């Protein structure tokens, strides 16, 4: 018995291992993958349907209308062009390859791209998806199915809306980073860190999109000059369709509304008591949302505490301020935030887009009211349009910088 044991085991193992030798099914070397770093989605030009080859379907034999044809621009990293270690001398050749294709759906277009690229298209490093505003206004749900299904996609990728055609963003050559799309993706990350935009990534956007009491929002970019990109506001959605955008400054108000802690925006404040314009920047905020039902109607009470600092005082005037002045500044700052927020809420109410997620408060705290009167996302959007609210803002200025007078 003992004698035969190891032998038997070995024979058994060998027999079972033989089929494995044909293996390495999933092994695909890193350099033979076409690593897609960014995707831009545009509406296809009307004549571009003709260009599409018969790859995933016969021409005209598909039940998706031609108007919704999309044009996909992808940025693929070329191995070898991005050198290992510190860069020695600047190569003029672009480290990325930009490929375009049209398709009825995302995967359709990607299949068309695969047809043009030798290596397998690999989406594991997809860091950025740029949606053209037009596409976003038509609805984004049609892209999420593929992205959710594909295990390569990271939920932490950034999704942004662009004013210009998304293809432009794929071709842009920022000076600061070797790989263009990495610059963009990192820009989104660092904007969030600086408090210029609330936490946003594709997984979070999906969660919000799915939830019944909130509507989605995404950063809105535009191109400044030749190769600079600017965050130019916040695109807000109703359901899966973009319905409008805010000013950059309103992002700060929005962040106050959802209670993002990291403050980043500064505004010029000039209380009537003072004669100088003072630049006050939010450092930190705390927001309390209190939902209630007033006469069976949803009502929101927002209490926002700001901690701010004085960053600059317009120096054409005397720059000395004292204790009373800061009080005035605090009040004025609060007032401005409140007004700004009211404008923003009014604007979104008009569009029936509850980007603040007030609906979630009612769903969570008043389940009876919710199940009786709301229950669906659409119903809540209607309720949101008529939502009443009170806003209270309290600011305290704790820092004034190193300058005494």
């Amino acid at each position, binding site marked *: 018995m003992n004698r035969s044991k190891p032998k038997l085991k070995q024979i058994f193992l060998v027999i079972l291992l033989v089929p494995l030798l044909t293996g390495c099914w999933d092994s695909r070397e890193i350099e033979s993958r076409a690593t897609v770093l960014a995707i831009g989605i545009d509406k296809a030009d009307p004549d571009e349907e003709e260009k599409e080859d018969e790859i995933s379907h016969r021409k005209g034999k598909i039940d998706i209308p031609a108007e919704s044809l999309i044009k996909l621009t992808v940025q693929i990293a070329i191995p070898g062009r991005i050198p290992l270690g510190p860069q020695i001398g600047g190569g003029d050749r672009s480290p990325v390859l930009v490929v375009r294709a049209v398709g009825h759906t995302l995967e359709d277009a990607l299949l068309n791209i695969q047809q043009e690229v030798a290596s397998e298209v690999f989406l594991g490093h997809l860091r950025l998806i740029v949606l053209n505003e037009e596409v976003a206004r038509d609805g984004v749900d049609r892209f999420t199915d593929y992205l959710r299904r594909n295990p390569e996609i*990271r939920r*932490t990728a950034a999704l942004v809306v662009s004013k210009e055609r998304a293809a432009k963003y794929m071709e842009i050559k920022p000076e600061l980073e070797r790989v263009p799309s990495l610059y963009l993706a990192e820009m989104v990350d660092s904007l969030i860190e600086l408090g210029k935009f609330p936490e946003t990534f594709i997984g979070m956007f999906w969660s919000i999109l799915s939830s019944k009491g909130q509507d989605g929002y995404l950063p809105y970019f535009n191109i400044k000059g030749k190769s600079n990109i600017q965050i130019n506001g916040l695109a807000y959605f109703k359901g899966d369709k973009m319905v409008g955008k805010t000013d950059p400054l309103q992002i700060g108000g929005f962040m106050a509304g959802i209670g993002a802690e990291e403050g980043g925006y500064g505004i010029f404040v000039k209380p009537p008591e003072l004669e100088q314009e003072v630049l006050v920047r939010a450092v930190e905020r705390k927001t309390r949302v209190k939902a209630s039902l007033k006469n069976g109607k949803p009502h929101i009470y927002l209490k926002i505490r700001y901690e701010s600092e004085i960053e600059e005082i317009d120096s054409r005037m005397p720059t000395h301020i004292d204790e009373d002045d800061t009080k005035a500044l605090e009040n004025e700052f609060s007032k401005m935030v409140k007004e700004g927020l009211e404008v923003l809420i009014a604007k979104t109410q008009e569009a029936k887009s509850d980007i603040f997620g007030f609906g979630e408060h009612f769903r969570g*705290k008043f389940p009876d009211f919710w199940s009786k009167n709301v229950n669906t996302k659409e119903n809540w959007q209607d309720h949101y349009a008529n939502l009443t609210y009170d806003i209270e803002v309290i600011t305290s200025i704790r820092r004034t910088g190193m300058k005494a007078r």
Partner: protein
Amino acid sequence: MEKTREVTTFQAATILISTMIGVGVLPLPLFAVRSGDTGAPFITVLGIGIGAIALIIITKLGLRHPNKTIISYSEDIIGKWLGKIFSLLVILFFLVLTALAAREFGAVVITAVLLETPLEVTVLVMLLLAAISARNTMNTFVYIHSFYIPIILAPVLIIVALSLKNANFLYLRPFIASDLKDSFNGALTVAALLQGSFLMTLIIPTMKNPKSAVKASLWAIFISGGLYVLIVAATVSIFGTEEIKKLYWPTLELARTTSLPGNILQRLDVVFISVWVIAVFTTIFASYFLTIQSLKEYFNLQDHKMLAYFLLPFIFTLAMVPQNILQLYDIILFIGKVGLIFTFFYPMVLYCWDLIRNKRGSKDESKQA
């Protein structure tokens, strides 16, 4: 091999924990949310409660026969033939459970990580791992389980901790599910995931101090149940119930949303699955071991080693029965609930019967005296 009573209370608890935490944790939030929306954590607690009751009954029953496993004492209680029939059913059930667990994990792997690898291969690797390990003695079985426990608990805790910064606790409210019937149904589904605890019947005869078996069971259900609730609460608070309904494996998706600070690893889903192989292995290993040990006892065999390889083709074939993932989950949910008959009602009936029998027995004795 003479039976040695070496298993400590701590080891017994670790066996149960690593058995109960397995591949079922991956779709757990989906099942819980499906039947109770935001009440998912509550449903999970309810399911754990049911599981705990079952486990305690099994333990109490085992304690009445501290030297035997359920295969032999069931014959003492309800008679030889009835006992034999039910034992066979229980063994068959765990055979199927082993197959399904291997298949489910195989499906996860080929869907999420190894997209081109044949399903057969991933399932076979898992089963082979279990079969080879199942040839070991009871002592090694115990060592293996208690060794892996930290590796099973750590990844979940790490991922939950890392992802909590994106949590929205509003998603958890209201806490109580509205529909009672659905909730109960969901609770049964959750309880079905805890069926590995049936292993307790096998452990008690090897415990150094069988009296502490109840303590071990309670600790085990507390820790693994706690982990269940934690996972459900974390996924719900991060994704929201509506998003979870769209995902097969929300727990895995949690790992997909998380990256290690400092960008050491940009995403954790693959790492999580890879580490989860260990958790799944211990689960499959436990039910495999339970099956062959019971079979050995059932047929009064001397050696269980050959049985381990002998069963492999059967389990593998069973694992290949479901056609696709949709059918797989239908079967898993169905089998899970059917299994409750064996792992919950059957021991309960045995326990009651045993109590009645004993009372009558002692009455008879007192009459005679």
